[in-house]
């Protein structure tokens, strides 16, 4: 890419099939300006790309250094020897392994349930007329504007009280966190899928009903498959959103009876970064951050088109 920069700055256009740049009106001065601007674009874009990549690369490479290298040669990107044991240490002693397991367990339940319940509610609200329809829709929408911190105290209290009757729904329980994630993701999921179901044509639904399909059969075998693009977008949105959630687990996955905390990855990383300050296991911390970062980045690079359009569609609606 850097050679392209030089080309744009110095060398005139040489390929025979492209005529000289024809800028506004075709003046030569404008063409030179255009080429200069092309070079400038490349330089600036490269600088920003380095600013994004360099810190990430630095974290990954620091994860392979020894502790004394991290302290003495913090800037070097090439460790003398690749210390993979940093990862093993973070995985077992740093408990990253169990953080991962907890996160995967919770997300498997919460994302599935969010998608299912969210699209069911959105479908009923979008395609059926009944009293209270608008009210329920607006109640769901209101969750988008209210700050989560306002609910923190009563939510913790509520979860604490629930554990008296339903021990599985108390603090520090996976099932509780799944249900809380689902509840807090419903607002946006309903909002998004509601507008999606509205756009589906009526004729197919009517044809299915004439053929004797029940309402729920119509939903599961006809409407839901037709909404695949919308489901993918909101699915990606929910996976990333719930994977990144740190406030709810920090609030709710607290140990009440002295048992070990079932921490999820974001919550665990915060604790790791605090504790590492005392133990000064810097390479282990870098290894932890790397492990939390790389899987998401790899998945993103493979599915980048879907992820980009999924996330931007979320904002565009």
């Amino acid at each position: 890419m850097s050679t392209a920069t030089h080309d744009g700055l110095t060398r005139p256009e040489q390929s025979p099939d492209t005529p000289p740049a024809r800028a506004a009106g075709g003046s030569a001065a404008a063409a030179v300006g255009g080429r200069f601007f092309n070079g400038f674009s490349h330089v600036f874009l490269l600088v920003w790309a380095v600013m994004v990549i360099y810190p990430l690369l630095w974290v990954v490479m620091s994860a392979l250094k020894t502790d004394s290298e991290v302290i003495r040669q913090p800037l070097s990107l090439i460790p003398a020897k690749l210390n993979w044991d940093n990862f093993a240490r973070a995985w077992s002693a740093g408990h990253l392994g169990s953080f991962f397991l907890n996160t995967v367990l919770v997300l498997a339940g919460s994302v599935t349930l969010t998608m299912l319940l969210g699209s069911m509610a959105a479908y009923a609200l979008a395609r059926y007329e009944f009293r209270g329809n608008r009210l329920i829709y607006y109640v769901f929408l209101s969750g988008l504007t209210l700050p989560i911190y306002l609910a923190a105290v009563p939510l913790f209290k509520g979860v604490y009280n629930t554990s008296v009757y339903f021990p599985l729904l108390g603090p520090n329980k996976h099932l509780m966190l799944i249900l809380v994630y689902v509840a807090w993701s419903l607002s946006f999921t309903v909002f998004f899928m509601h507008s999606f179901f509205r756009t589906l044509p009526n004729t197919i639904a009517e044809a299915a009903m004439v053929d004797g399909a029940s309402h729920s059969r119509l939903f599961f075998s006809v409407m839901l498959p037709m909404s695949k693009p919308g489901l993918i977008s909101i699915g990606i949105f929910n996976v990333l959103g719930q994977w990144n959630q740190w406030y709810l687990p920090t609030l709710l996955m607290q140990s009440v009876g002295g048992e070990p905390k079932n921490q999820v990855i974001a919550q665990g990383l915060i604790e790791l970064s605090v504790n590492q300050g005392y133990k000064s296991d810097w390479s282990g911390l870098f290894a932890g951050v790397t492990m939390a970062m790389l899987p998401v980045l790899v998945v993103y690079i493979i599915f980048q088109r879907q992820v980009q359009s999924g996330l931007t569609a979320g904002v565009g609606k």
Partner: protein
Amino acid sequence: MRHGVARFVTGFLALPLGLYLFYVVWPFVQAAGYSLTDWGGYSNTQNFVGLDNYVRLLSDELIRKAFWHNVFFLITVPLFTIALALFLAFLLNVGGREDRAGIRGVFGSGIYKIIFFFPQVLSLVVIAVMWQQIYRSDGQGLINGLMIKIGLVDADNPIAFTSDPEPFLGVPAVLWWLLLIAVWSGAGFYMVLFSAAMQSIPKDIFEAALLDGASRFHTFFRITLPLLRDTVSVAWVYLGFIALDMYALVFVMTPSQGGPNHASEIFASVLNFTAFQKGQFGYACAMGVALAIFTILLAAAQLRITRRERIEY
């Protein structure tokens, strides 16, 4: 056709609505109720104190400080992120060479887009922990290490970053350093968003402008930017919400979660401190209600300001 509709709708709505009411709506309602009491959170005694908590809010120095810090982020996060994202999108889409077909996107724009989007898929906590190491206030940190090596920073007197309460342009330095992280992590996403919007503008508009002799700068400022108005205003609203939610960064990166010496205190950090450290649940709930009212007013105001006739094409 209408047969069984009521039963079906009830069946589909019961579970989601129940969960939502129990875990989201009910806590909000309770918070509003608690804000009128002097409940400590751990005791069972609570007395109705009316609007006392709200009156107390008005004269609370710490809250006033946190409020202005929130306002600072509310203005700067969207402003800098959108400016940088627009600039990057502009370079990507208009920075290429010109030929018979008009102005092209820059070479390799696909790769740039992938890279710039990286921070968006990382969790805020990963970003915070990572930047904590970049911002270390000794030679072991990435920035201080580099600066000391080049000789721009004295090794005995490194940059303090998030533990620096000294004001810069009237705002504590620690807030500017947090702002930098927010802009770093957000710019790529909005760049992709603006890029997509730019590409959905029909080509013939640009061709017509080129025929009329408009330069690429004119084209950008007179055609592209006005047509992006909708997308930019949506981005502004979203970034506004993100700016109110800088708590993850404050929580992980600043000394005693709002320090040093309350220099990086924001609404959320004061609320959490009041509720869980000081044990004043009633008062904390009043803060939460105030924040909620502030957020809703803000959202309404933004929607009102940014609403304009859509341009269809």
